[in-house]
């Protein structure tokens, strides 16, 4: 019995350790700005600025890239992806671009991208971005070729929704640019930002004992890249708690107007970012706080964003931006925390040998295992990242890891069913098969790069593959025009 208790305590500590690592300074410096950017994109960028490229009459060389890149602006959560997917399919540019949008959306959104970059490495984030754009367009083209008759049978009514002339104005670029700068200053590891330019010492006695207590509560293994809870981490966690309390009252209904709590929570958010950007060293005499270039950068960028918001925006726009941001946090963050904790607690239970045997090297089989895991497991937004990190630390090869990361947000049984209700079962399952194949392929390609294959050669293959698909679609379209279909509706176009 004591054995079991000790075992449970170990799992609990492992979970807490993981949580601490994910609430550490460098992760917050990435996540907080990413949430702000997501809120800004949703609230301030008019959807028509992208959807006007996705109308029925848009030429293919416009609609496919627009569908691929549009996910960045439009698709921060799945609840906007599916309605947009349905309307692009039924009333807009058709099946191909709709599929491209559906595929690229989850992979390209700012939250997933920056979180992947900080937790797993920028190379894998970049691979996820580039490969999902290329393969998204590829799968869209393939679907359009396979079901080319279908496009002729959809309803031909023009849709006013796709003809707006809205453009993204200069002030939106400026504001989003500043938020992006906040993200970059906070996460970029260059000397200019990481150097310390001044130091202040807070004379709090017993800081070293505080730090030791924290390490005792949450033991960690530095050889496995774990960090444990630092004094700074504890302060940040405290600040996050305070933000949660004040934001609940200050931001939940901020679209109706500011109140006192709004300013308190905004102040706390700024303070959290500043604290996270410093470096702290506890010792017996107190707490050394090193003022890094990062900290000055963060302060400067935040001041700029504040000025822009006050000077160029109406109150109600800023309020909507804050409301959207808080909504994302409320929707994603609690699940993320639970997910990270559970992942950490499970870690001691999984033997590295299992993972290494299944996916330790970059083989076709290993990549398919990665994809299968992604399809059958459903994790809330962003939780796929700590899961991937778990596998990585247990010895999974980065190639199959990417295969998993690509397929997980795209394919879950739930999203397959909803997709089927829009485009019909046959098309939905065809899509699933292609996504599985392409995700495995993406893993293989990236894995080959990790193992040393030259980048130029891989890019050449990718470009050639895409060119073949474009040629095939052009050919198929031409043939269809030459020989009009006499029997219209196909049996399965019930969706």
């Amino acid at each position, binding site marked *: 019995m004591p054995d079991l208790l000790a075992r449970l305590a170990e799992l609990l500590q492992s979970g807490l350790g993981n949580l601490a690592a994910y609430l550490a300074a460098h992760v917050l410096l990435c996540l907080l700005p990413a949430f702000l950017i997501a809120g800004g994109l949703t609230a301030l960028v008019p*959807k028509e600025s992208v*959807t006007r490229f996705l109308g029925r009459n848009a030429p293919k060389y416009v609609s496919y890239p627009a569908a691929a890149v549009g996910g960045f602006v439009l698709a921060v*959560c799945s*609840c906007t992806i599916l309605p947009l997917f349905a309307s692009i399919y039924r009333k*807009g540019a058709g099946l191909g671009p709709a599929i491209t949008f559906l595929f690229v959306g989850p992979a390209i959104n700012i939250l997933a991208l920056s979180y992947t970059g900080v937790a797993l490495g920028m190379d894998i984030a970049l691979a996820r971005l580039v490969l999902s754009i290329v393969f998204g367009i590829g799968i869209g083209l393939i679907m359009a070729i396979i079901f080319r008759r279908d496009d002729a049978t959809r309803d031909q009514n023009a849709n006013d929704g796709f003809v707006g002339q809205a453009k993204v104005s200069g002030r939106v670029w400026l504001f989003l640019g500043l938020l992006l700068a906040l993200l970059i200053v906070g996460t970029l590891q260059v000397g200019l930002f990481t150097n310390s330019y001044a130091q202040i010492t807070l004379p709090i006695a017993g800081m070293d004992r505080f730090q030791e207590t924290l390490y005792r509560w949450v033991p960690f293994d530095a050889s496995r890249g774990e960090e444990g809870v630092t004094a700074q981490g504890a302060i940040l966690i405290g600040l996050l708690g305070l933000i949660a309390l004040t934001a609940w009252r200050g931001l939940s209904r901020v679209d109706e107007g500011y109140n006192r709590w709004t300013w308190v929570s905004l102040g706390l958010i700024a303070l959290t970012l500043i604290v996270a950007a410093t470096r702290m060293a506890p010792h017996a005499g107190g707490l050394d706080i090193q003022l890094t270039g990062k900290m000055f950068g963060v302060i400067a960028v935040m001041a700029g964003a504040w000025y822009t918001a006050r000077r160029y925006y109406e109150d109600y726009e800023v309020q909507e931006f804050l409301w959207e941001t808080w909504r994302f946090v409320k929707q994603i963050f609690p699940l993320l925390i639970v997910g990270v904790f559970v992942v950490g607690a499970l870690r001691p239970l999984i033997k590295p040998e299992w993972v290494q045997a299944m996916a330790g090297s970059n083989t076709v089989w290993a990549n398919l295992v990665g994809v299968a895991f992604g399809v059958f497991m459903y994790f809330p937004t962003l939780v796929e990242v700590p899961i991937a990190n778990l596998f990585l630390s247990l010895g999974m090869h980065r190639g199959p890891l990417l295969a998993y990361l690509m397929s997980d947000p795209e394919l879950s049984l739930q999203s397959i069913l909803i997709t089927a209700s829009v485009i019909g079962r046959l098309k939905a399952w065809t899509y699933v098969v292609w996504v599985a194949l392409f995700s495995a392929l993406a893993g293989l390609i990236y894995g080959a790069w990790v193992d040393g294959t030259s980048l130029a050669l891989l890019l050449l293959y990718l470009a050639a593959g895409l060119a073949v698909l474009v040629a095939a679609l052009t050919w198929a379209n031409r043939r269809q025009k030459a020989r009009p279909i006499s029997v219209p509706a196909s049996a399965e176009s019930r969706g």
Partner: protein
Amino acid sequence: MIEIKVLGIGCPKCKRLEQIAQEAVTEAGVQATIVHVTNMQKIMEYPIVSTPGLVINEELKSSGRLPRKEEVVAWIKEAQS
């Protein structure tokens, strides 16, 4: 009697829009029914690109964004006259 429809598949924004519509109806002081349409087929019958959408007396007033309460009140008054 004014008929208001909120189009959305149950995302937080759609729920918020329903609240806003409810408050706007109270503020305008009119008789109105508010229906939350969640069926994708029905939603797609309107010229809508992205949710949430607001329909007043079968006319689409806004889509893809949260309108402000004052806007909704104005639309309701317009529909009534």
